[in-house]
């Protein structure tokens, strides 16, 4: 991850003719919910409105949270989940999931929402034809936290993940608690042993094990698998993924049982071995009906560090024992587990593996399928959003200019592209192409221009040979990236 000290921010690449043009919304670090146009113009900021993530709903509504619980007592607990209008007025709020009495704090109801939510009408919370989220009624699925004890997992307190359904009146009408399904998660003995000893221990609130860390949750929505009779993929079923365990799973809404699962182990069948070890993944969801690739599972496979298992040199206790220093965006057929499409360092044109870590976000991040077949990718840790074509060309790129003051990082948790018509309050902006800058010639003020002042020729020197200067081989080691390429 070699970053230059100086580089441009804002929109850096834009080919209007090949993009699916619209607005993009994201949580600008420690600033608020920011809506930008394709040229990076900042259309509106909902100042200090939190969001994990922020979403635009039709009509210029925005969803997010008014704040986060004190980190002395909780971890990523959103106080509430709110819907505000274009002018920032709160039109819907949910907070009555748990009554919290933190020492020194005012007792209050909290949603404890984190990482995701879905408003009825849209299974995944982004644009798909005919599947638009409701704005004045309907239920909302919320991913939330709950502190539990479960001696089958660990003798220590656990920070558990729950999926809850909240009606428009703010009443919880359905709940799924992850720890109650521990035996359905496929942990092997080495993982169970380690989980018992170290369930990803966090110190806040007296300590709790953030053992799964579910970071996305969405409905499957109408899909061809269910139409063909596969009830595992009932449109009302919920798909989630958990970064600490490397598990992606589908929960049956009727029985609450897990009916489809990817991970935690990726070495148990030929199909899984071909797929490769998914590590610390985010935003696993089924591409909604009406978009190219509908029915496939789109996953931002971060890499980085995650999982529980046997010790290895990179994980002496077996904690976070799966390691990889590049990311992959995978589109997977959920029936065959074959990769249908992917964007990895190879497709990004980065020499593999020596420069693979230039496409790498070890945490956060996402991928959204767009109606023209492009994919909007949030490479979150570096604050980079790109739109890539099915042929892997980058046709839009944006770098967030917002570095946090408390955490010096310009991270973007998850960005969404929405159609212009979802924000009727402003006129559709002009779309101005941004020509690619030739970085080999690009200089900042004060730097010498490109070009060598004097060239000498040495008799007898040989031409350069492929890979001659490298200390590592480039034809091995990238099984997961190379074998599934194309």
């Amino acid at each position: 991850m070699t970053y230059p000290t100086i580089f441009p921010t804002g929109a850096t690449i834009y080919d209007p003719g090949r993009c699916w043009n619209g607005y993009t919304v994201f949580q600008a670090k420690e600033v608020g919910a920011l809506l930008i146009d394709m040229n990076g113009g900042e259309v509106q900021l909902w100042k200090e409105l939190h969001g994990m993530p922020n979403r635009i709903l039709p009509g210029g509504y925005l969803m997010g949270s008014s704040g986060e619980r004190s980190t002395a007592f909780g971890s990523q607990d959103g106080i509430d989940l709110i819907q505000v209008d274009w002018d920032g007025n709160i039109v819907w709020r949910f907070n009555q999931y748990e009554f919290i009495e933190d020492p020194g704090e005012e007792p209050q109801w909290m949603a404890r929402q984190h990482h995701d939510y879905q408003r009825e009408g849209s299974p995944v919370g982004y644009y798909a034809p005919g599947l638009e989220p409701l704005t004045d009624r309907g239920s909302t699925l919320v991913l939330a936290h709950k502190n539990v004890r479960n001696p089958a997992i660990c003798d220590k307190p656990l920070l558990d993940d729950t999926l809850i359904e909240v009606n428009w009146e703010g009443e919880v009408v359905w709940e799924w608690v992850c720890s109650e399904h521990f035996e359905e998660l496929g942990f092997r003995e080495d993982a169970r042993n380690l989980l018992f000893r170290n369930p990803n221990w966090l110190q806040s609130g007296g300590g709790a094990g953030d053992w799964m860390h579910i970071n996305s949750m969405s409905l499957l929505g109408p899909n061809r698998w269910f139409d063909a009779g596969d009830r595992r993929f009932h449109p009302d079923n919920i798909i989630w993924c958990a970064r600490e365990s490397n598990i992606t799973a589908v929960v049956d809404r009727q029985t609450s049982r897990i009916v489809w699962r990817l991970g935690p182990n990726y070495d148990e069948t030929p199909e899984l071995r071909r797929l490769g070890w998914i590590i610390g993944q985010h935003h696993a969801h089924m591409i909604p009906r009406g978009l190219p690739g509908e029915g496939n599972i789109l996953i931002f496979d971060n890499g980085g560090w995650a999982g529980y298992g046997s010790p290895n040199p990179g994980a002496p206790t077996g904690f976070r024992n799966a390691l990889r220093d590049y990311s992959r965006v995978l589109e997977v057929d959920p029936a065959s587990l074959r990769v249908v499409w992917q964007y990895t360092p190879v497709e990004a044109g980065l020499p593999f593996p020596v420069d693979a870590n230039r496409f790498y976000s070890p945490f956060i991040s996402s991928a959204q399928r767009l109606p023209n077949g492009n994919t909007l990718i949030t490479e979150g840790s570096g604050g980079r959003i790109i739109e890539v074509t099915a042929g892997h060309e980058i046709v839009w790129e944006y770098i967030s200019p917002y570095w946090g003051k408390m955490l010096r990082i310009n991270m973007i948790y998850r960005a969404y592209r929405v159609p212009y018509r979802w924000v009727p309050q402003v006129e559709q902006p002009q779309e101005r192409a941004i020509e690619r800058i030739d970085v080999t010639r690009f200089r900042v003020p004060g730097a010498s221009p490109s070009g060598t002042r004097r060239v000498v020729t040495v008799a007898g020197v040989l031409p350069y040979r492929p890979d001659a200067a490298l200390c590592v081989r480039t034809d091995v080691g990238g099984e997961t990236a190379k074998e599934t390429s194309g």
Partner: protein
Amino acid sequence: MSILLFTATGCARCAIAKKFMAEKGLAYDEHDAIGAGKERFGQFYRAHRSAVFRGKEGIEFPVLAQGGEIRQGVAAALAWLQSGSRLDGFIGRSEPSKGWVGGLHVARGDPGEAESLAGVLGFLKRNGLKLQLDTDGRNPAVLERLLRQGLGDRVVMDLKGPRALYPALVGAPVDLQDVERSMALVARFPEFRFETTVAPVPAAEGGREAIRYLHPEEIAATARWLKEATGSHRQPYFLRVFDPETAADDRLHSVEALSPGALVRYRTAARTHQVLTEIQAGSA
């Protein structure tokens, strides 16, 4: 009448029972059911299988037999030795739990025997056992006496439902002021919780007698009643799923069980008045 006492090797509760009998000067014939007296206990068990409870953890000892009466567990054995069958309503079967004695039903006994009950519980307490009481709200005077004498380390109150349905849910006449007094007393014990089983209730529908489950609004009313009686909206209040198979009323065996997930709406309703309401883990 001679006393037959079956004990188990290393059983601390058996030692307490023997100590009680020694203090009372009662003679008994002891057999170690997992040692030398195994064969003798086997014969006894086969002859009295229905009177000796075998739970998940096995058989609880001591088991005491006298004159055709059998009592199992240290509390029941001591109660028999002290008062014959007069304490039977107060003391029932206890699931073995390390250091605790349960099955102590404040509401079910004869309040005239409160002093005798306190004597038994005091002996258990002095010998190192912790006491878990339960009540449905009846006999508040007994509860108050036990509170005053420190004879309850934990109380679980089975709050049957809202005021209007309480007698029907208990299956007997109930003085609702007794229930309210009990709620307030329960909240003064060192450890306590309130529970409500989301149970079926008889209902008249279209002129016919029918059975329906309590509604979420009725659970909300129960939670509100708890708030009014205790002055707190922060009571540890738990909801439980009704198990038709264990229902005392035969008419309820055919009622379809609710799933634990169905209680989420009830919890939401209850939290309007009791903010810490939870669904009891393992409730099924």
